[in-house]
């Protein structure tokens, strides 16, 4: 369990999250991809705290802030998805084309 291994895992999670966010049509699936990316970020943050800061609690604080961001993003994201569906009847990204051109 070295720092490089931790960072590899984090990179893998992040890469899968990117693939998911770019390839999925449905809004909810895209949000799942975003969650995975944030997951990777948390792992990387704690990894760095564990390996390079020598116990500085601000490393953990970063992880907590990222978790808070995850929660915020999830809440607002779902609220927006609901709203968009109500207004434009759109649940997949292809349905939103107003900005085309």
């Amino acid at each position, binding site marked *: 369990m070295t720092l490089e291994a931790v960072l590899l895992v984090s990179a893998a999670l992040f890469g899968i999250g990117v693939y998911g966010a770019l390839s999925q049509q449905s809004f909810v699936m895209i949000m799942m991809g975003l969650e995975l990316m944030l997951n990777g970020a948390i792992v990387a943050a704690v990894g760095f705290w564990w390996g390079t800061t020598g116990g500085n609690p601000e490393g953990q604080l970063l992880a907590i802030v990222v978790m808070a961001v995850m929660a915020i993003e999830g809440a607002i994201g779902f609220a927006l998805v609901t709203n968009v569906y109500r207004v434009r009847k759109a649940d997949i990204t292809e349905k*939103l084309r107003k900005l085309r051109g």
Partner: protein
Amino acid sequence: MVWLPVVFPLAGAALVLSVRRRRAWLGPVVVASLLGSLGTAALAAASGARSSWSWGAGIDLGVEVAGVSRVMVVLVPLVAVVVVSFAASSMREDEALPRLLALLAGFVAAMELLVVAADFLTLLIGWELVGAASWALIGHDWRNAQAPMFAKEAFVTTRFGDLGLYVAAGATFASVGSFQFADLAAGPNDRWLAIVAGGVVVAAAAKSAQLPFSPWLFSAMAGPTPVSALLHSATMVAAGGYALIRLELILSAVSWFGPLVVGLGLSTALAGGVVAFAQSDLKRALAGSTSAQYGLMLVAIGAGFTAAGMAQLTAHAFFKALLFLGAGVALHGGGTLDLAKLRLGSSLPTVALLFGVGAAGLAAVPPLGAAFTKEAVLAAAFESGVWVGSGVAVAGLLSVLYAARLHILAYGRGPVLEIEVGPHPVEVWALAILAAFTLALSALWLPGGKELVSELTGAELPEGQSWELAVSVLSVVVGFVVVWLLWRRNLLLSGGLPSRIRGFLANWWGIPDLTRRAVVDPLINVSNRLAEGDGSVIDALVRAIAGSVVGVSQRLRHLVEILVDRVVDGVGSGTILTARGSQKFDDGTVDATVEAIGAGIRFGGDQSRRSQTGMAHHYYTLLVGGSVVLFIVAAIWR
């Protein structure tokens, strides 16, 4: 110092012109300047100074006060003061009074210059200026058509005579190499001196209205009366006599000088006397008498007694000015100068009395000073010859006749008329002052008078014989008797002569007609002929040149037009060709380039529009791709 009598009147003239708005100041200013001139003249006469001014090129203008000029230089401003006061008063209604007074003051300055001249050039300058001033003053009322014409007649006649003075000056210079009188006096007695003498006599005769130049004085009477009183009785006409007096010593060396002058003067005295007796215009009669009196002076000078001539000149100045001023009062009061209509004795008693004093002087009634001077002239004439003396005695009789006739006809007892414009007190005082001077000259009869005259003039008076005095007294008595007889028979105006003859005599013995036919008309004809010749010959030449020039220029213009048109056409077609070529280039190349650039940009825009899909996932992809690139760049850059 010697220049001051000239400078003061000049300054007065300038001052009068500068204050011409304030009419109340005009008279006092000019009279003050003339008093200044009088004062400085007296001082100069007492001290006897000389001075000179460098004209340049080795010529000096010299002035000196010596000999007879001492008397003359004081006499001129003295008479001028009185006459100018009269003028300022009697012509106070005249609008052009400033011009009149300024010209009078200027005239006095020029006359003083003439008087103090010590060489021909200065004399000539003063002579000419005096003539010009006379012209301007005679023509003072230029709106009246007559006045400028008469002024021109007077001026041309005297100017003609002035040619003699030019000839004299030139001859002097040729003879002794300078213009100074002193140098001429020291020079040789040769034909140059004869030419000088001839020239001076001609000029003096013209200026003093002697035969054959006498009629110009009649024309001069067209001017205002104060002008006649100052110029044409006392001062300007005196210049002729004065020049002869001044130069007599030098010119008497010429053998025929004396006899010529005597002959001229005597004939004028006799002829002028007849004219004065026959005239029915008051001023013209006085003009005739002026010529006659100057003729007497010339007799004395020609006889060699310049002192007698100078004394006669002085006395004549006073009473002649007095008489002319009296004529002015008669003109203003009676409205006419016709002797047939004037009898102002009862209407203007004071003026009549003063006029009588003047007339007495003219008649040379003893014991007036005028009689003394007439005596001296008579003595001088008898020294010259018996016939000359008899002639002078006859002239004296004539003077009694015309003087008494004038006084009776003008200011004799008559009806008491309503005087339109009575004389101003200043005018009466002027007359009184002149009368006083005339009376004061009676002192010359006292013992010591002869010596006084000799001392003042620097020459000797002739020794008079007692029978000459008897002759004078006799002529005076005879004259008065004849006049009384004529008056009794009411023949005073006509003088017992038939009217045609009287008219002929009154008009200067027909001299004006003669001169017109003999001199003036031929001259005008000749000049007209010359003008015609000029017109036909010279003008024709000029016209021919101009015509040829015009023809040449027209031909040139034609040529130029053709040439220029060709050139312009060529330039035009060349420009059109160039324009077409550049149009092709512009369409083919430039426009194509611009359009290609535009098409390229449009293509680029269309293509780049394709990235705006409006789809979120495309944008995310771009985001990821961009971040990766950034990351790599940041990693490598480090």
